């Protein structure tokens, strides 16, 4: 029966997608989407409980034994990612009720959204490389459609660039899979670990590792490959850009973490050294790019890039503490980032624009929103005692532990520059009077819209505070996750059942 614990977080959103498409007329589709998200959350919590109970769990689909069939597997990292995906999905489903217009709903918005969640969850749970590619594609095709849904020149322009670059990265990833299959003769990740370790031509393995780094790097938006992200994330509906910002790039980071702890560990000195420099440059260019922007969502988009750097840095340093920080960062960041995009959406509802030069005065007219902005914004910048502080603290401590002074210095510097951007948004959108001399009032949005949009913001802010004030269980969890990543014996045994 354990196998169904693994299947349900993927199957439920898929079924919800089918139902939401067949009954996509308002309000049935909406309710199905909301119900599906609640059920997905329950299924993912059941998965989390099972993982906490039994450690790494694995299931063979269709009852085919491990290296031949498709395996679903969940260790601590997968489980927490699935839970956080479900939480973000539920928050977005609530938020979408306020924001997404009926015409868009009738085009099948909810079905696409649920498919996206299914794709993301599938990518987190699969233990098979080709299956990972398939989940990436499920996720991508849903994200393509969500990005351009609703139409308009801006969205089409952004969509074309997003689609083009993501397709290229997918093809690089796919050819990497082909070559790796050629070397190891297997697609099962656990089996592949052994195959790669025993491969004759280790040089070729490193080349393939670089192909994976580029392929996943585009998805994760790391340094030289991130330019599609700020070109597209500020155009779709806010609910969609929030779920993209929260989840999609993190799938890339997750895939990097999985591949570079499980499979490509033969030449850590080379691959992970590159990752360190990539991470540092990602952090720095992201935060500098954000400083140059004046649009609410463009600033946030560049900050996604800068924060991705911290996560990959956790992987690149490759010590238990650093990986622990990376996992903690991943979880904290998804909550905070999605929340900031939600806030941006509500700010636009109130003040009429996302360009910071053309709005203002939100502090006076919407103090609740201002308070709810402060929490994720300061968490992002790393103020104690919010969740971001602990995440940054772990990474910096890990860097100091191995005497990587420069790495620690850049991490702290980027944190400082993040504060600059957040205070810029605070000053321009909330403190400064509105340039048109009007008071942006909450009356501009109907009360049910405000309610639907405020609920997820408040919920996610509460989670940020909880993680901030009671970091102990989360840190311990991240520690176990990092241990499992660095020593994947349990993972391999769970997948292959102890037999060679």
């Amino acid at each position, binding site marked *: *029966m354990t*196998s*169904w614990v693994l*299947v349900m977080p993927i*199957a439920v959103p*898929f*079924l919800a*997608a*089918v*139902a939401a*498409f*067949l009954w996509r007329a308002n309000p049935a589709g909406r309710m199905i989407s909301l119900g599906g998200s609640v059920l997905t959350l329950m299924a993912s919590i059941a998965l989390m409980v099972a993982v906490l109970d039994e450690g790494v769990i694995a*299931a*063979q*689909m*269709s*009852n085919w034994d491990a290296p031949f069939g498709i395996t679903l597997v969940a260790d601590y990292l997968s489980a927490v990612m699935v839970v956080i995906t479900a939480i973000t999905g539920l928050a977005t489903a609530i938020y979408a009720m306020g924001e997404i217009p009926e015409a868009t709903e009738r085009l*099948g918005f909810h*079905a696409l959204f649920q498919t996206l969640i299914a794709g993301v969850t599938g990518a987190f749970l699969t233990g098979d490389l080709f299956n990972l590619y398939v989940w990436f594609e499920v996720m991508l095709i849903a994200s393509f459609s969500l990005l351009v849904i609703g139409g308009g020149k801006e969205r089409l322009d952004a969509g074309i660039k997003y689609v083009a670059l993501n397709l290229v990265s997918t093809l690089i990833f796919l050819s990497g899979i082909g070559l790796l299959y050629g070397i190891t003769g297997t697609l099962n990740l656990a089996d592949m670990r052994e195959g790669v370790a025993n491969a004759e031509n280790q040089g070729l393995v490193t080349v393939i590792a670089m192909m994976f780094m580029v392929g996943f790097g585009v998805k994760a938006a790391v340094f030289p490959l991130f330019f599609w992200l700020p070109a597209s994330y500020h155009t779709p509906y806010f609910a969609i850009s929030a779920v993209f910002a929260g989840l999609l790039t993190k799938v890339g980071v997750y895939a990097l973490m999985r591949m570079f702890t499980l499979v490509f560990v033969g030449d850590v000195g080379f691959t992970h050294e590159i990752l360190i420099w990539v991470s540092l440059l990602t952090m720095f260019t992201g935060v500098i790019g954000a400083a140059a922007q004046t649009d609410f969502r463009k600033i946030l988009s560049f900050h996604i890039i800068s924060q991705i750097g911290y996560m990959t840095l956790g992987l690149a340093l490759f010590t238990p503490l650093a990986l622990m920080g990376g996992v903690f960062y991943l979880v904290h960041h998804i909550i905070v980032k999605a929340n900031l995009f939600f806030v941006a959406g509500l700010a636009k509802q109130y003040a009429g624009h996302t360009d910071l030069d053309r709005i203002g005065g939100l502090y006076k007219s919407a103090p609740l929103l201002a308070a709810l902005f402060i929490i994720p914004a300061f968490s992002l910048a790393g103020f104690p005692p919010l969740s971001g502080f602990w995440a940054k603290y772990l990474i910096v401590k890990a860097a100091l532990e191995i005497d990587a002074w420069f790495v620690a210095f850049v991490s702290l510097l980027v944190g400082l520059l993040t504060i600059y951007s957040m205070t810029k948004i605070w000053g321009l959108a909330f403190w400064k009077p509105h340039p048109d001399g009007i008071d942006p009032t909450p009356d501009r949005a109907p009360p049910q819209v405000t309610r639907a949009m405020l609920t997820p913001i408040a919920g996610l802010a509460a989670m940020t505070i909880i993680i901030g004030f009671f970091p102990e269980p989360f840190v311990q969890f991240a520690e176990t996750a990092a241990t499992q990543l660095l020593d994947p014996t349990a993972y391999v045994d769970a997948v292959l059942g102890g037999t060679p």
Partner: protein
Amino acid sequence: MNSVIFTAAARLLVALMFVFSLFMLLRGHHLPGGGFIGGLIGAVSFIVYSLACGPAEARKALRISPEVIAMLGLGIALLAGMFSFIVGYPLFTGQWLWVGGDSYETAAFSLNTVLVFDIGVYLVVLGGILSLTYAFEEET
């Protein structure tokens, strides 16, 4: 396209191809064939029809919108895969109900989830391809 010969031939051709697609779907159970190729052939038959009589007419011939067909197919395939939940096997494990016997050799015929899954695939492919081609044809 306004050709009398093509329109007349299309009626015959469409019916033949559609029946052939169903044949391919059922044949795929033990021999090369299956839901995917069957769905493709079925889609081609409707595409031929829409070339002969126009997409509006072809949509009418299909009765249900192709998007709904595709989504229904996805639902059927998923539910067929999840049927094994009842008997406690992992997802997509095939389940057979032998009629008039207890194995492949002795049974008169068998009901199984694999065929249901294939029917789902057939519908997904048919619906997916048709929704694409109809959309493109209506644009031009």
